[in-house]
């Protein structure tokens, strides 16, 4: 592996076109290469080196001629949690939906710019969206288990939908449910319908369903917004555990949640990336006045 990459300080992303390229340190041709390590970084990991899993490069997305997201660039570090925060309508959901090409299933959607997964552009044509979505899984705002499938079949839905079966299905089910911290609660009712679980359990079932196909990246679009505080705490704990094996990008409108679970945070405002950096830095020493206004609760 190359030098330890890590965005080392809160970098201000200039919103004007001129400032964009400098903002991300690495110039355009080197995007996708690991970031240079900043020696006096206080947050640099001292364990194993972690590369860059995804790079979002000058991403603009929207519907028809209306851009929801303008010129967003940021890296996603492997096996960490990256939080995307910002007020309602700022483009958070659109951003993560561009990472597994779910944005384009909505009629009239448009995307430009690049999104690199392991250095290769997911919009470049070498990877079809079907294959991509198996490598970049997703958990949604509202728990959406398949109500007519059993708990077990929900976990296996990645195969069932395509009419196939994984080798050692029982093992896959148990492993995915254990990773989603749901196994002990449902192991005796794997045959119960997916609709029979409580909200928090249903959301963990959806996480298990996404994990079962062994994705590299897990996108979570406000996964706790429909849950009570206890269920939320469980999911946050789970996100923490999962981060050792999966790269997680989580959208949240809850700043405390971003501070609790993430290592890096991106602040979006009105479709533009205002600030991106280590979570601790962004929350304690925001460099943009709009970030400061938002995290201190002056708007949003």
């Amino acid at each position, binding site marked *: 592996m190359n030098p330890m990459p890590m965005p080392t300080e809160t970098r201000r992303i200039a919103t004007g076109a001129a400032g964009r390229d400098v903002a991300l340190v690495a110039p355009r041709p080197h995007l996708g290469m690991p970031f240079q390590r900043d020696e006096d970084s206080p947050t640099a990991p001292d364990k194993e080196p972690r590369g860059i899993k995804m790079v979002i490069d000058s991403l603009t997305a929207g519907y028809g001629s209306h851009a929801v997201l303008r010129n967003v660039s940021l890296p996603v570090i492997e096996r960490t949690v990256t939080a995307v925060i910002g007020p309602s309508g700022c483009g958070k959901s659109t951003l993560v939906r561009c990472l597994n090409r779910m944005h384009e299933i909505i009629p009239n959607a448009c995307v430009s710019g690049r999104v690199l997964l392991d250095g290769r552009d997911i919009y470049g044509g070498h990877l079809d969206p079907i*294959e991509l979505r*198996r490598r970049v899984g997703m958990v949604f705002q509202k728990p959406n288990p398949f109500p007519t*499938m059993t708990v077990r*079949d929900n976990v296996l839905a990645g195969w*069932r939908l395509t009419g196939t079966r994984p080798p050692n299905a029982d093992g896959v089910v148990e492993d995915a449910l254990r990773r989603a911290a749901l196994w002990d609660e449902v192991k005796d009712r794997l045959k119960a319908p997916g609709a029979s679980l409580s909200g928090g359990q249903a959301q963990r079932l959806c996480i298990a*369903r996404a994990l079962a196909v062994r994705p590299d990246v897990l996108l979570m679009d406000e996964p706790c917004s429909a849950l009570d505080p206890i269920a939320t705490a469980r999911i946050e704990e789970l996100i923490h555990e999962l981060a050792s094996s999966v790269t997680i990008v989580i959208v949240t409108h809850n700043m405390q949640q971003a501070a609790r679970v993430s290592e890096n945070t991106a602040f979006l405002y009105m479709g533009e990336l205002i600030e991106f950096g280590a979570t601790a830095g962004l929350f304690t020493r925001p460099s943009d006045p709009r970030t400061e206004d938002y995290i201190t609760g002056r708007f949003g």
Partner: protein
Amino acid sequence: MQARPNTSGADTAFHATLVLAGLGVVTVLAGVAWELLSLSGEALSKGGIGFITGMTWDPVAEEFGALPALYGTLVTSALALLIAVPLGIGSAVFMSEIASSRVATVVGVLVDLLAAIPSVIYGLWGLFVLAPLLREHVQPGVQKLFGELPLFAGPPLGVGYGTAGLLLAIMVIPVITAVSREVLRAVPDTQREAAYALGATPFEVIRGTVFPYARSGLVGAVVLGLGRALGETMAVTMVIGNRYDISASLFAPGYTLAAVIANEFTEAFSPHYLSALAGLGVVLLGTTLILNAAARLLVRGVRHGGAG
């Protein structure tokens, strides 16, 4: 909760109105069933089980058997569903899952228009356009290819079970399409997204997520279509051929329960004859109720059975 005296009177009246409306439906159904049963009492008690299994319909000799008409009703309805279910659900899937909203709206309006055409118009079209077309061009060709099969035996008359079934299918398609479309639209987008996010193709999303979620509603759409096919009278009477017999051939003329009642009601010269026609009505009502109940049991079966 504090009572609000101002509105309690209105609430009571509202509540009473709704209860009356609900009771009204039950009363009408019970009244129809009672009238039919009392009117048909004579024929049913004289004929016994033979009224249902009898092959002869002879008003002069006062011998009445409903089987050929029951057979005609079941065969034409089954044929209609065989054609209309795939086409109707298919076009509903097209409108809710594939077409752009503008195209879906246009197609939807046209489908609703189809459902609004009076059945006598369908009957005229069937008699003057569809039947000659089948007689001149389709039936001879089919017989050339499959003439050996009893299913296509007999002279190509243009009218008969097959023509009636086809015409019924055309009449039933808009019913099935319109209901299925609403059922499919009611499937939440979050379900589709969940499947797409797991790497399913559009086809797999529809087959694995949308259909299972909507299945009880889709069965309901088919049951509504079946109800229309079983009870359709005018159009079928015009193209069924009106021969009181049972034939395995789709090209043969036949009769249906509703068509016999419509054709002969004005000629019923004796109380026994009238009672026999009412008896056909009982058989038709019974068939509809039994098939409806069977469909409901089927829906409940799949709901409890899960996907496994």
